[in-house]
């Protein structure tokens, strides 16, 4: 990558250290939260419900263990390296198995590396998790620019194409000459773009969100019942569940002021993604019934990371960059993905991507499956099942 010429490709070990004052300030802010009145409806149709967020705030201030983030992250090898002028934070866990397949896996919004932590064991050490040694991965989990402990871009241009090139550089810098990439949500966009850029060494990609159909200029076909159901689900999402997308893609700075200043506002903003995950998370707090690994503590690990790193606004900006990149592309179709593609659709996802649509987007589809459980945050919610999918998707590439 030309722009790295002249910069030091140093890879520095990284440890999370959170000053106690930051925790005290966070607790104090939660304690002084000023609440609006209750929503006027009995469901999530006006946004995150007051009872849900109040219970989250209560648990966050009183019961949540703020040492969790340090403990969980510092248990894994973490590093920082500067790519294209920006410090990129990543977790890098090598498998004990010699011929493990290197995998770079990318989180999304409103997530972070926290959503992927429970997959580290199954992917790098499959034999300890009911898998085979030949399915082992060397795992790289970067934090997107503007997310977590990666630095925030201070100027425009860190769009998904830029991130994809940076990930190729990262894998190159780590000495991986043959590797695969995986992602959901924004991570699926990054992985998709990596597939289109096809950097040397990238063998294939796996995704768990069909990003080619969200916001596509020409909607995918609705010929079968399955396709029509998917179209309906997309329509529901883009008409009612899309507020965060509209705001972040146009006015990330404006909403950023509230997200940086009010931890409860940040928590509500991060909870208000898709219907399935919202109700699962709400149930974890209000009814004490988590779905899979979407527990109160895991949810709060992610929210607390956003708060402590002050990344509410910077994490919103890639959505704004998406619009800029589309304008710059001026309607020019991106190159096709000719690399092998694996895809898993999970039942709680925003829409169930039919195989027909996935094949249309990725003619070289080498793996397609429907997961039994899990939703938009499949890796977070069902890490074992998710890891099975990643193993199966990439088995033919070893």
């Amino acid at each position, binding site marked *: 990558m030309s722009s790295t010429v002249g910069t030091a490709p140093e890879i520095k070990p990284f440890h999370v250290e959170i000053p106690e004052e930051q925790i005290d300030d966070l607790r104090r802010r939660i304690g002084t*939260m*000023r*609440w*609006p*009145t*209750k*929503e*006027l*409806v009995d469901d999530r149709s*006006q*946004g*995150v*419900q*007051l009872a849900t*967020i109040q219970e989250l705030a209560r648990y966050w201030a009183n019961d949540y263990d703020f040492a969790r983030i340090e403990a969980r992250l510092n248990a894994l090898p973490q590093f920082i390296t500067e790519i294209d002028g920006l410090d990129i934070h990543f977790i890098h866990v090598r498998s004990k198995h010699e011929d493990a397949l290197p995998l770079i896996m990318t989180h999304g919004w409103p997530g972070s590396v926290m959503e992927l932590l429970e997959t580290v064991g199954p992917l790098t050490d499959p034999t300890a998790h009911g898998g085979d040694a030949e399915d082992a991965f060397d795992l790289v989990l970067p934090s997107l620019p503007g997310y977590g402990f990666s630095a*925030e*871009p*201070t*100027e*425009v241009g860190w769009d998904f194409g830029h991130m994809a090139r940076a990930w190729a550089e990262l894998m190159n810098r780590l000495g991986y000459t043959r590797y695969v990439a995986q992602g959901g949500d924004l991570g699926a966009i990054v992985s998709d773009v990596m597939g289109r850029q096809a950097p040397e060494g990238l063998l294939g990609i796996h995704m768990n969100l069909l990003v080619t159909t969200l916001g596509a200029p020409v909607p995918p076909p609705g010929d079968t019942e399955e396709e029509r159901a998917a179209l309906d689900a997309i329509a529901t999402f883009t*008409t*009612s*569940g*899309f*507020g*965060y997308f*509209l*705001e972040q*893609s*146009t*006015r*990330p*700075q*404006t*909403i*950023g*002021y*509230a*997200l*940086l*200043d*009010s931890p*409860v*506002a*940040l928590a*509500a*903003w991060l909870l*208000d993604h898709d219907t399935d995950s919202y109700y699962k998370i709400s149930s974890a707090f209000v009814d004490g019934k988590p779905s899979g690994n979407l527990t109160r503590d895991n949810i709060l690990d992610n929210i607390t990371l956003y708060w402590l790193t*002050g990344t*509410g*606004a*910077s994490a919103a*900006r890639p959505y*704004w960059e998406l619009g800029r990149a589309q304008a710059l592309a001026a309607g020019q179709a991106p190159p096709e993905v000719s690399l092998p593609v694996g895809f898993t659709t999970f039942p709680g996802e925003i829409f169930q991507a039919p195989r027909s649509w996935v094949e249309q987007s990725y003619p070289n589809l080498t793996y397609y499956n429907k997961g039994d459980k899990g939703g938009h945050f499949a890796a977070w919610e069902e890490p074992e099942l998710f890891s099975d999918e990643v193993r199966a998707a990439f088995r033919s590439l070893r």
Partner: protein
Amino acid sequence: MSSVETAIEIRPFHVDVPDEALEDLRRRIAATNWPEKETVADQSQGVPLAVIQKLARYWMTDYDWRTCQATLNAFPQFVTEIDGLDVHFLHVRSQHEDALPLIVNHGWPGSIIEQLKIVNRLTDPAAHGGDAADAFHVVIPSMPGYGFSGKPTSTGWGPERMGRAWAELMQRLGYSRYVAQGGDWGAFVVDQMGLQAPAGLLAIHTNMPATVPADVDKASLAGEPPPAGLSTEEQRAYEQLIRTYGQVEYARMMAARPQTLYGIADSPVGLAAWLLDHNDADGQPAAAVVAALDRPSSDTGELTRDEVLDNITLYWLTNTGVSASRLYWEYKGGFFNAKGVSIPVAVTVFPAEQYQAPRTWAEQAYPNLIYFNDVDRGGHFAAWEQPELFSAELRAAFRSLRTNGGSS
């Protein structure tokens, strides 16, 4: 009407904010945790950090709510329960007994603060270069969920219901012949009043008229090319609509997820940024409001920094950021499309409004158009930006109703 069997008491109201509320506000502004600067050199990512930080410094140190409170309390204010909800309003009677009763509706992100400078100009025109014959008795209600009105606890308080409530309010005040005025959400409310045509409503005046013909409305909302045959003025309006629809994500957000905006209840700076980010024809945030942030005072009644903060502070002190946002959720109708109002309508077109309604469209949309004027200055917040001109427009707009035996 639902007021039957409910108390129709009209209680005097005074604003009295406790010191602790003001101290808490200053403390919160001082403790603001800021994001990094936007990554652009313009306003395309939202309210710029430098703009909001400068405003926050002034808000925290020199701004004085008590001045605004005194201004409000200099006007007779009341609360009355309508349809189960406490409605707050200013009610200023002209010294001229035969003045024409007028109800004026504010919008979002506004409040009654937008209209304070027009009150005396309308009730006492002779003292402001006008004619005593043009005097109004002025009623300025706070919309449900706004300012000192109650916050609805169930759904249904959209513009239609507000229109019916305002008719009830005017009746309760003893006005049997009156007119109504509005911009922004107030324009939606007066259009609904026009459709409802309650007994006694003589006419409406709107400074955000809904005139767009169905085919142009459809094309502009879809971002499609305009229908053939538009005049130069109509073509300009179409292009202004396209621009506007690219600047209303704040409205779409509030229409979809008002409750998720917890930050505008908890963070004064978060609230201020949210309220500042409404567009006008010259920018988002509105150029007229951004310009006001550098205007400490004005002899001609132009919008000032203190007035912008009066409005934001009112939202803060009444904790109405979220309740005000719910109005967007309530409303499922069209925006600028012609609604079919057949009672007399007066229109003033301000140049920096979302779009400049062509007279041709206004005549189609409002077949009983009694007044139409294009003025040379002022924008989306016309009453706030140009109170003198705005007041002159209202006098002119409704004059024919008086000479034709309007009020007596």
